[in-house]
């Protein structure tokens, strides 16, 4: 951060910052501390433990990590495994791969094609999540869905997506939903590459793959890292699959965000147990965010 001289004294700055600082303390820092404390209690919404939660030590964590059952469907280990598959499939491969492909295809190109493709990809990203969930239920429908009409025409069968392949369904959905971010980030990053590098490579007859490997990839390594960390972080926390599958069938798409929601906000509303899941999620988030900040700092330093 470059240091420019101040226009106003610090006192004025504090006045300007006070509302924001209050919001950060109340809605970010306080919940972060509170969730740790809650995770050692048996707090619920209803029943006797609602007004007077008891301290239960590490019970909630023992329950989460109970080796006998934690890999069963609908348990924490299973949710983590499904989330990992979801993040790798939809964010790291789907969104980042497709985003890079589109950004690269339109490198230093303007025109109608680019406008159309970029607009459609961005639309998928900004339309309200309940609406895209409805259109995807229609799109994936076994009998009437457009996807199966297309697949059948080309002779690829007619799978019942949301029941036979629920995880693939939400991976496909989330790749579609979030490609825009990676596409915009990469296409912005590509513009920072001096054209002379590419022209020189073209003069000596480099192939597209060689240009990508020897020019784009090394120069964009920082942007790629930024992109991968951020989309991992967001996809890890995203709740939208719930609107498509509700976590089912038979908990086969229950990612950790849905597992948390089901524990804390459905059924018995077990806030204590829900908090222990939230603590593990936030620690994973914290790890990813620290890697992100460290990578930015290292690049600034060099």
């Amino acid at each position, binding site marked *: 951060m470059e240091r420019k001289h101040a226009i106003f004294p610090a006192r004025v700055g504090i006045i300007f910052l006070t509302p924001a600082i209050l919001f950060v303390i109340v809605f970010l820092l306080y919940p972060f501390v509170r969730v740790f404390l809650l995770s050692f209690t048996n707090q619920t919404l209803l029943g006797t433990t609602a007004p007077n939660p008891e301290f239960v030590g590490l019970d909630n964590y023992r329950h989460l990590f109970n080796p006998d059952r934690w890999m069963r469907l609908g348990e924490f280990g299973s949710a983590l495994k499904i989330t990992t598959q979801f993040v790798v499939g939809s964010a790291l491969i789907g969104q980042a791969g497709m985003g890079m492909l589109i950004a690269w295809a339109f490198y230093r190109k303007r025109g109608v094609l680019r406008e159309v493709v970029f607009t459609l990809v961005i639309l998928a990203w900004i339309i309200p999540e309940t609406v895209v969930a409805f259109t995807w239920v229609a799109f994936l429908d076994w009998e009437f869905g457009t996807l199966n009409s*297309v697949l059948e025409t080309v002779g690829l069968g007619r799978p019942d997506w949301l029941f036979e392949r629920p995880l693939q369904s939400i991976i496909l959905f989330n790749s579609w939903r979030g490609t825009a971010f990676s596409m915009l980030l990469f296409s912005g990053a590509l513009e920072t590459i001096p054209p002379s590098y590419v022209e020189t490579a073209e003069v000596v007859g480099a192939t597209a793959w060689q240009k990508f490997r020897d020019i784009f990839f090394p120069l964009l390594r920082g942007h790629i890292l930024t992109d991968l960390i951020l989309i991992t972080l967001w996809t890890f926390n995203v709740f939208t699959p719930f609107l498509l599958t509700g976590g089912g069938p038979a908990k086969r798409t229950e990612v950790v965000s849905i597992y948390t929601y089901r524990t804390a906000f459905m059924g018995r509303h077990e806030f204590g147990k829900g908090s222990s899941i939230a603590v593990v999620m936030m620690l994973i988030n914290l790890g990813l965010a620290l890697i992100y900040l460290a990578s930015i700092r290292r690049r600034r330093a060099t």
Partner: protein
Amino acid sequence: MNSFVIRSWLARGLLFAFSVVIAASFVTPLLWLITAPFNTQANLAVTIPTNPSLANFEAVYHNKFAMRALFQNNLIIGGGVMVLVAGVATMASYGLSRTHVPGRDVLVYVLILFSSVVSGTAAMVPIFLLVFRLGLIDTYAGVILVMTGGLLPSAIFIMRDFIDSIPRSYEEAALVCGASSLRVFRDVALPMVRPGVVVVAIWAFVNAWGAFLIPSVLLRSPDRMPASIASYSFYTEAGTPNLTLLSAYAFLYTIPVLVLYLIVNWRFGFRFFGGIKS
């Protein structure tokens, strides 16, 4: 024709084919949203209606609950979040940009870190209890405050880019002429950063407009539900949706987002506004 011309035509053809494939795969899942609302016999298939009609919209119009969700609750929540986020973020980023508050770098670091850590469903567990204690469960204020808290860090980074990019000389001149700091902010700086305020306001509004998780956790009475949740009123008790009405409602619900996107794209060009630095 020399080989260069052939290669260039080949490249153009490839790009065209690629664009068609990508455009088709991104638009196909949305086609249902365009055809079904105008078809009085809509099912889950994408069929171009033979007699396009607005009857579905008329039927939706008579669903008072869903209409109130869209035209009252969504506007109150979206409007409240928009005003609060834009106001607080503009002030904060102005303070960060124009003064040297002690601990400024720490504040920025905490902001980046905790905005990504305390998010999503995990954050809703402690936040629900907080809102409960504040007595704000089932109020617009609870939803608006929680959403503002979540959007504020990113909004501050977007605003900071705009504010850092405007020249300081006008503000300095105004100060020399004896204007108060509030006056410099309001009458000199604010008019210059107006595009930034507009972008942040629209961004916050669109985020609040589409939100599902926060209102579904914090609201109870049907009267206050936003459209994202009211959409489910077109399901029967047995869980089967009334597709004609649902599609028409989803269509209405999407229009403001599309209009705002077009405005931002036309006035400023849709791009990243700050936040993502690498």
